[in-house]
């Protein structure tokens, strides 16, 4: 089996706020393989964005503290690099796309200038070469009339077009890894579908591995080969996309899947997950889902279930799995 391109090992992140220490990410581990798309799903506050920002070392510290773990990019631990070395990686070996491109593009520079700057810093391209490459990238992401658009400012573009520029920028220096944090959440469905197709095409062409952070199970089913499900700062289930959708094991994953109203099938009353996510300041001795799980017993409440394989490549953090025959 191939070596993982990016490997996150037992990542621990806490936030300090007003004398309190809040758990944000608690022992997250996963591997991103070359050429693959890995989806990280979960609801707000589950730690999926903190995980991606920690990988890029983009969390402000304080208040954020990466307290443990490793982020290995082809064997090199990013958490041990200096800020200067990190800067070289960001926009170079690692690209990033955010939900709202307007906040990550600089409004006072043209789209072209921003791509050219990145090319100059990371690939040493200058002058006409850089500009030609910028236009080539804008063509690659199918921005209409790229030779004109290259001189446009971000506000002159539509939301979908801005996201294309953002992708061009992220791909400018042939990154090995692309981290996309809710890249299509702010877009209309027809535009979303164009952007997802584009990302897939580019991946086929460049072999870039993609880590996709999203709350949208539809987007995951359609674009990812591997899925990591997070809940309250931890990975509670992971596996191949077919395993997660066809054979969900964790009671939370099951609840989440059943709560989505589907366009392609009539459903009765939607299933719900009673209760709420435990607040991040609360210490949880056992399983973090126990308070909402109808199968939870004393063991669940007292000792945290480790991630364990249930079938080949499919892991779940639940004492009761498989829940057939389980008894509360």
């Amino acid at each position, binding site marked *: 089996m191939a070596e993982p391109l990016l490997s996150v090992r037992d990542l621990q992140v806490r936030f300090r706020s007003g004398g309190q220490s809040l758990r944000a990410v608690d022992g997250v581990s996963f591997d991103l393989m070359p050429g693959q798309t890995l989806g990280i799903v979960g609801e707000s506050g589950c730690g999926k964005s903190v995980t991606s920002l920690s990988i890029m070392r983009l969390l402000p510290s304080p208040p954020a503290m990466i307290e443990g773990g490793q982020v290995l990019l082809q064997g090199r631990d990013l958490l041990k690099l200096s800020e200067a070395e990190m800067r070289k990686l960001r926009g170079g070996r690692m690209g990033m796309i955010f939900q709202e491109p307007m906040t990550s593009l600089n409004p006072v520079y043209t789209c072209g200038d921003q791509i050219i700057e990145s090319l100059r810093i990371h690939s040493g391209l200058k002058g006409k070469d850089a500009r030609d490459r910028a236009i080539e990238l804008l063509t690659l992401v199918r921005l209409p009339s790229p030779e004109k658009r290259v001189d446009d400012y971000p506000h002159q573009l539509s939301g979908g077009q801005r996201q294309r520029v953002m992708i061009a920028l992220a791909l400018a220096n042939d990154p090995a890894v692309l981290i996309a944090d809710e890249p299509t959440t702010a877009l209309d469905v027809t535009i979303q579908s164009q952007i997802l197709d584009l990302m897939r095409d580019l991946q086929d062409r460049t072999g870039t591995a993609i880590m996709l952070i999203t709350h949208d199970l539809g*987007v995951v089913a359609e674009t990812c080969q591997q899925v990591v499900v997070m809940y309250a700062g931890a990975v509670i289930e992971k596996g191949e996309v077919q395993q997660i959708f066809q054979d969900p094991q964790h009671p939370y994953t099951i609840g989440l899947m059943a709560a989505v109203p589907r366009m392609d099938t009539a459903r009765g009353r939607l299933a719900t997950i009673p209760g709420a996510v435990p607040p991040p300041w609360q210490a949880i001795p056992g399983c973090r889902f126990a308070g909402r799980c109808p199968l939870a017993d004393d063991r669940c409440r007292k000792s945290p279930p480790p991630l364990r394989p249930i079938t080949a490549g499919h892991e779940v953090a639940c004492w009761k799995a498989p829940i057939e025959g389980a008894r509360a």
Partner: protein
Amino acid sequence: MTELLRVQNLTKHFPVKRGLLRRQVGTVQAVTDVSFTLAPGETLAVVGESGCGKSTLGRAILRLHEPSSGEIRLDGEDVTALDTRDLREARKRMQIIFQDPYGSLNPRMTVRETLAEPLLLHGMATPANIRAKVDELITMCGLSAWHADRYPHEFSGGQRQRVGIARALATRPRLIVCDEPVSALDVSVQAQIVNLLQDLQRQLGLAYVFISHDLGVVRHIANRVAVMYLGRIVEQADTEELFLNPRHPYTRTLISSAPRPDPTVARHKLPVEGGTPSAMALPSGCAFHPRCPMAVDRCRAERPELRQLGGTLVACHRADEAVEGMDVAAAGKDSPALLRRLEILEQARTMQA
């Protein structure tokens, strides 16, 4: 069929003014010539992408935007002709829920004060029984009575939407315009609010105009669906009919573009280029023709009127032509393992209770 709401040729155009003299330089044709009816207890979903005019339509129905022309009849009464006082009276019967109810809740008032105001104002409660009335309202929306004495910022997104719903219900309306009420919520919370809206509809006989861009939610909650594109309804049909047999190329594009939470279905995607044009400079003929894979000369020259085709109203010259490979809404299925395990969880939950 009895009729609660009749919207007839409703149009809302916004003038665009520029310069020192505020001269009108153009018009945003937000809503043009929209007609539909709604029965008591029924849900009509209005779907479309950003800028299609669905929110403007919702507000124009309540006259939060003054319509440019057209008629809105609530229980036979022409709402567009009412003066301010009668309009206030009519608004008791029609209410609105927003995507983020935060904007409609006063941050300095407790939820109890917010809910008591319309009850007292409209004479639906007296100072003597107001406490009990508010408690009743808030428990009906799935919150506890003690929640009423808290401030809006103390609530989570889902709870806040429950307060927004309670506020809308205070005057016992018969019609509620729901403007993207679950779009900002997490999936598990969204399911709770959708269920609540359905329960309240059954209990109180409410009619909903449900504005949404989420086709999954729409399929689940609506009896009928109207699809809007650039200010006009381009297709209207019963929900099942619309999803199983979409007639307008735009509807097909929408349905085939929405990602499905099922890795086993291979999706047949319809190619669509570009985005929605500006509502200030509408394309000639059919507004969808620049993006339509089926467009012919006639589509560029002549705007198609809505016409009846089976049970569907559709505005497309080529809607009755058979299209190959257009099985856009191939039926999906939940995995047997998911259903089996869900059942186990539900049973355990019932045993617990």
